[in-house]
């Protein structure tokens, strides 16, 4: 049987038989395996670039269970580029107050006031099935405008053979099996990636011996929109840590860290879960259990994300603990990085080796995420007596001393990685330019006097000039970069100058299609610009 591993939240791409199932194998430019958030983002990104994609998923919609709830600013900015940022923002919950407890004592409270002059907040809370649905809605809109995207539900990939410059796939459907061929395959088939297994590739790292119980509860009671986190919670039987977090539709995410030696069946008994939740919310709290599950996690990654014509993205390539919300968020960044590169390679504008830079840059990102999430885990679950002594010392000091608060680590929220020192980078010659817009960084958003900067960046490569001259377009080796001309005084708030000029009077930036900065100078220099474009597409 195809599918059925989980219930779906929305049936958005029901199975339909296609003529190809009764024909000789047909060759596709790009086949994506897996229609989770990462696969859908990949289909959308490539389709919007005009690169034909076929997405195969073994179910017919997003899974019912809420997994990811926290989506970061960079994910929202990427979604904005893909067309659905506003929808996500409108549905998502924004919060800024967090409280940290140790036992019954309040350790401290924080208020993450958003920095002004960005279109998107640092993060929103939203159930993963909604996130996926908004992407799929956007795929439908793109299709209606002619984007070459096809989604086939209940199509399970069961076999794979690598050929010299393509891949052969066996696909199982409710009407039986058929075969297809792909010039390029993107494996977005999740942490247990069947594609990875079929290719015999490893997934190494650390398994954490811990079980987490999730209960999503619906509660209409007046409860503040805040994030509450307990170390060693005082309520009965609640384990080592607990989290309470708001989602849309009056749903609250409750997380209990249960330890390693548990009986899953006993713990999932609704009566037992209710007893825990009662203890947390206080006697008499009115709520419904909407969804519950127990999960364990590991911090693992593949050594390389490119294997010939097969590219791995999202959980299939790397997995982290949920603390810090880096799973789906980093998967979306994989696609941000992969989409433009693959479509340039397919269009013959860049050498195939450009795809190695996808692996290099995203392995670098995955390492950063694994490091952060491992550190959070070590703080949450001290691995030795002395680490627990220090952990509790930090929590105690944080009650009265500000210095200890930044050391409290219940998850470091996902921020995009800066591709520092990577091979595609050009020169950083803007003397004392701001650190946040250094080469390798994603463009910080800023007001421009006429809307936000990221909204105004044209598609493709961009030459951003601030109070500097440059031609409207530079075409090098077939790759065009178009100019966006801004002037610092147009932004009365001064944020644009702050984020892009620093002490400099003018600046010229070369920006990649994924909005990462490829090079910067004080003024336009044609020879240097051409060299930087060549380098950024791997032609050096």
């Amino acid at each position, binding site marked *: 049987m195809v599918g059925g591993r989980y219930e779906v939240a929305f049936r958005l791409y029901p199975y339909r038989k296609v003529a190809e199932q009764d024909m000789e194998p047909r060759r596709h430019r790009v086949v994506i395996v897996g229609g989770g958030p990462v696969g859908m983002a990949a289909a959308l990104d490539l389709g919007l670039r005009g690169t034909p994609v076929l997405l195969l998923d073994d179910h017919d919609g997003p899974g019912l269970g809420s997994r990811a709830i926290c989506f970061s600013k960079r994910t929202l900015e990427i979604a904005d580029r893909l067309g659905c940022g506003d929808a996500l923002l409108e549905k998502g919950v924004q919060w800024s107050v967090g409280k940290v407890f140790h036992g019954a004592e309040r350790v401290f409270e924080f208020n993450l006031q958003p920095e002004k002059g960005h279109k998107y907040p640092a993060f929103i809370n939203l159930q993963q099935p909604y996130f996926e649905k908004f992407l799929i809605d956007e795929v439908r809109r793109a299709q209606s405008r002619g984007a070459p995207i096809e989604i086939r539900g209940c199509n399970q990939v069961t076999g794979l053979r690598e050929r010299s410059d393509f891949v052969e796939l066996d696909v199982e459907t409710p009407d039986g099996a058929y075969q297809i061929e792909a010039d390029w395959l993107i494996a977005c088939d999740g942490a247990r990636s069947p594609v990875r297994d079929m290719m015999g590739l490893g997934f190494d790292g650390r398994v954490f011996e811990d079980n987490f119980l999730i209960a999503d509860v619906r509660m209409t009671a007046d409860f503040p929109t805040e994030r509450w986190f307990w170390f060693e919670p005082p309520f009965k039987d609640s384990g080592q840590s607990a989290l309470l977090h708001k989602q849309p539709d009056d749903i609250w995410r409750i997380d209990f860290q249960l330890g390693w030696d548990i009986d899953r069946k006993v713990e999932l008994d609704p009566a037992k879960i209710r007893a825990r939740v009662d203890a947390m919310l206080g006697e008499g709290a009115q709520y419904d259990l909407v969804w519950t599950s127990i999960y364990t996690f590991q911090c693992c990654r593949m050594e390389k994300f490119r294997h010939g014509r097969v590219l791995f993205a999202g959980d299939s390539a790397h997995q982290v603990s949920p603390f810090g919300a880096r799973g789906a968020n980093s998967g979306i960044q994989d696609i941000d990085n992969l989409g433009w590169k693959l479509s340039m390679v397919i269009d013959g504008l860049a050498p195939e080796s450009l795809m190695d830079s996808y692996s290099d840059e995203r392995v670098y990102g995955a390492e950063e995420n694994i490091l952060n999430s491992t550190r959070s885990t070590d703080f949450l679950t001290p691995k030795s007596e002395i680490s627990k002594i*220090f952990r509790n*010392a930090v929590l*105690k*000091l944080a009650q009265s*001393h500000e*210095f200890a608060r930044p*050391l409290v680590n219940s998850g470091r929220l996902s921020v995009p990685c800066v591709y520092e020192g990577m091979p595609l980078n050009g020169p950083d010659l803007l003397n004392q330019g701001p650190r946040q817009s250094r080469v390798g960084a994603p463009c910080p958003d800023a007001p421009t006097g006429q809307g936000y900067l990221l909204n105004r960046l044209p598609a493709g490569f961009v030459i951003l000039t601030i109070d500097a001259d440059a031609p409207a377009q530079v075409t090098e080796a077939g790759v065009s970069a178009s100019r966006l001309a801004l002037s610092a005084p147009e932004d009365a708030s001064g944020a644009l100058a702050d984020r892009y000029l620093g002490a400099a009077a003018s600046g010229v930036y070369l920006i990649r299609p994924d909005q990462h900065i490829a090079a910067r100078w004080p003024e336009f220099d044609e020879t240097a610009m051409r060299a930087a474009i060549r380098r950024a597409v791997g032609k050096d």
Partner: protein
Amino acid sequence: MPLNLAPNIPDGDGFYDELLQAHQGLSKEQSEAFNARLILILCNHIGDREVIRQALRAAAG
């Protein structure tokens, strides 16, 4: 500034006495927690990661 490993505390005997006094009446567990807090407070005061690194090495012997 490198880590200062030359004598630097005025009235060393007085300091030593004060340090031990602070632990007076504490159980082993309480003393360990106290030490951990003290280390964190002092490291924060120093702030310089390189100096702290040198101190960690010096303490390791």
